């Protein structure tokens, strides 16, 4: 991004929602602030962002002031000169050999005091920390080709500091490796600008550092599923031509790039990403190939496996139906540009990526791209359950076809468990990634999310579900506040995996019972994606569920229109009396 583009992006900032983000550094924020502001504007299109900066040369003081002032997040950019000014290019305190030990001691002490400040700040808001990205000055007596004790000790102190930071909730570290890919180290330092104005970064580096920091502080919601082709993608070779033993993914077969791809897919599946196959192939041959003992992505991690000779987009469509998620949450990987184009045309929201079978370097770049699309901060229990629950959902659909829905639901031993959400990261994750059954499409920062629970009369519950086909885990979040006999709901989402089990009805019934309210007021907003939520509301509000506003549902009306429910309810949810 050029500076002019960044300023244009900032100029377009608008929105009712407001966020304040701190940029905390010891240098002049100057263009780094502009680029961070611009990347925040691109990340939060509907939000007015107030970017706050601190005082020149006072990183620690800036951290302290940000803690006192509060905010929605902080980006902390550290340079060596913040750890000891003698490590910068603007100081003239001497690079004599006898000062080196003292500099190391100073860096050690400074890193310890930054520890405490960062930890304190992270209790109030999420913090992204960028480690020094400008090289050390030429102060050691050793030739630059040789790594010396002084430099190694400084790097060891820095590594220890960063490792301690990485262990804290609420602190995320900007990846130095990823930053180096976007901004090579020897292109980062603008010496002239550093000496002239105290701003050490070249424009391209300021942009890369800003982009990485914003992505680290406010990661984009990860995609949910990946659909892969087989021939020349998951493995090398055309299965129909070379047979089950002829396809390969190994060094010996000169097809290691496919092994790398399989390993990444297996790792993604481990973290709850859905993996499916869409391939024009012979189903029996595919089944046999996937059973090979050397496969690195076992068939147990793939569902569904859509193999036929039909059009590729139809196979992809069947995967969407099974997963019940939108195309814009999915990546499709195929070696054929024609297949990619055909799928992209049918499903404009899907991200289509080409697997380049003859270019291992491009395959590795693709793998990094996949990590970027699917990366998440933590792997939860629900991530482990997801694939099995989708597999299990296919069974009820088939069984259900024989009888009425009510009859079927009465026989599946469904259990619904309500619990206070507290600081449950799953609740935060669900609210920020659910589109279809979502009351109003609102997304929250961590600070906004915590603030919801501090409102007078506030409640926030997670809802878990299981039946004889298996557990779905925590699949819904319900939140709001109670005021006299009224209950206001402004957070309500449910995973698409939990549809058609009447959990939404049971949730409302439990909310009435729990709060004793005679009326629930839903803060509803239609979005492009929340059709399933609107369908639910249409039962109670036949004419009013298409425009933004408050929908009022009385308990007697609810019970009159509610279908028979068969869930066994485990209520572990206590609404705090102090609220």
């Amino acid at each position, binding site marked *: 991004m050029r*500076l*002019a583009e960044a*300023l244009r992006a900032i100029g377009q900032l608008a929105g009712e929602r407001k966020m304040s983000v701190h940029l905390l550094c010891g240098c002049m924020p*100057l263009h780094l602030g502009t680029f961070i502001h611009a990347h925040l504007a691109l990340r939060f299109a509907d939000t007015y962002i107030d970017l706050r900066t601190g005082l020149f040369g006072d990183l620690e003081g800036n951290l302290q002031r940000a803690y006192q002032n509060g905010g929605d997040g902080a980006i902390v950019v550290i340079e060596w000169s913040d750890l000891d000014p003698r490590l910068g290019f603007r100081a003239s305190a001497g690079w004599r050999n006898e000062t080196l030990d003292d500099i190391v001691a100073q860096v050690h002490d400074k890193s310890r005091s930054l520890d405490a400040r960062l930890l304190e700040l992270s209790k109030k808001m999420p913090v992204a920390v960028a480690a020094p990205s400008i090289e050390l000055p030429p102060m050691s007596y050793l030739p630059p080709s040789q790594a010396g004790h002084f430099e190694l000790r400084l790097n060891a102190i820095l590594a220890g500091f960063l490792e301690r930071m990485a262990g804290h909730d609420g602190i995320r570290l900007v990846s130095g490796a990823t930053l180096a890919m976007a901004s090579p180290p020897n292109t980062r330092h603008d010496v002239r600008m550093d000496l002239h*104005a105290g701003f050490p970064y070249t424009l391209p580096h300021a942009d890369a550092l800003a982009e990485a920091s914003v992505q680290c502080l406010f990661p984009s919601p990860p995609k949910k599923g990946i659909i892969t082709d087989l021939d020349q993608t998951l493995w090398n070779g055309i299965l129909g031509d070379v047979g089950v033993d002829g396809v390969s993914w190994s060094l010996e077969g000169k097809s290691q790039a496919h092994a790398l791809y399989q390993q990444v897919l297996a790792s993604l599946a481990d973290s709850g990403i859905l993996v499916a196959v869409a391939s024009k192939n012979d189903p029996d041959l595919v089944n046999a190939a996937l059973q090979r003992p050397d496969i690195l992505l076992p068939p147990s991690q793939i569902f569904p496996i859509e193999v036929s000779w039909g059009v590729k987009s139809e196979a992809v469509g069947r995967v969407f139906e099974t997963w019940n998620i939108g195309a814009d949450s999915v990546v499709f990987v195929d070696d054929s540009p024609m297949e990619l184009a055909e799928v992209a045309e049918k499903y404009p929201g899907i991200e289509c990526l080409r697997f380049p079978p003859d270019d291992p370097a491009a395959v590795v770049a693709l793998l990094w791209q996949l990590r970027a699309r699917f990366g998440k901060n933590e792997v939860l229990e629900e991530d482990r359950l997801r694939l099995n629950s989708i597999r299990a959902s296919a069974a009820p659909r088939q069984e259900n076809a024989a009888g009425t829905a009510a009859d079927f639901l009465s026989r599946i031993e469904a259990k619904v468990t309500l619990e206070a959400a507290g600081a449950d990261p799953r609740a935060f994750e669900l609210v920020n990634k659910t589109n279809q059954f979502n009351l109003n499409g609102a997304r929250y920062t961590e600070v906004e999310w915590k603030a919801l629970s501090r409102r007078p009369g506030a409640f926030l519950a997670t809802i878990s579900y299981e039946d004889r086909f298996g557990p779905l885990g925590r699949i819904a979040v319900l939140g709001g506040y109670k005021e006299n006999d009224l209950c206001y709901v402004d957070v309500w989402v449910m995973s698409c995996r939990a549809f058609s089990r009447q959990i939404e009805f049971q949730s409302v019934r439990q909310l009435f019972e729990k709060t004793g309210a005679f009326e629930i007021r839903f803060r509803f907003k239609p979005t492009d994606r929340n059709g399933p939520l609107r369908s639910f509301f249409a039962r109670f509000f036949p004419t009013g569920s298409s425009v933004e506003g408050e929908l009022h549902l009385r308990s007697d009306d609810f019970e009159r229109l509610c279908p028979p429910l068969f869930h066994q309810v485990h209520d572990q949810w206590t609404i705090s009396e102090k609220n």
Partner: protein
Amino acid sequence: MDNIREKLSRCFALAFPKLDPSQYATASAQNMSEWDSIAQLTLLTLIGEEFGREIDFEEFEGATSFEALERALQVQ
């Protein structure tokens, strides 16, 4: 010359988004409170991008009006 003025105006539009374009010609650090040292650096960096030149900040240090900047760019 018109080309320089047009490009310089584009830089002003970004550096001083609240300034009415009719006032660019008479704009200077003396009559604009928002034209401080940070704005000067931003403006010079935008000029560097717009004109595809590496700007020597010291050389442009005294160029703190539209007119002075236009003159300095004509000389270079």
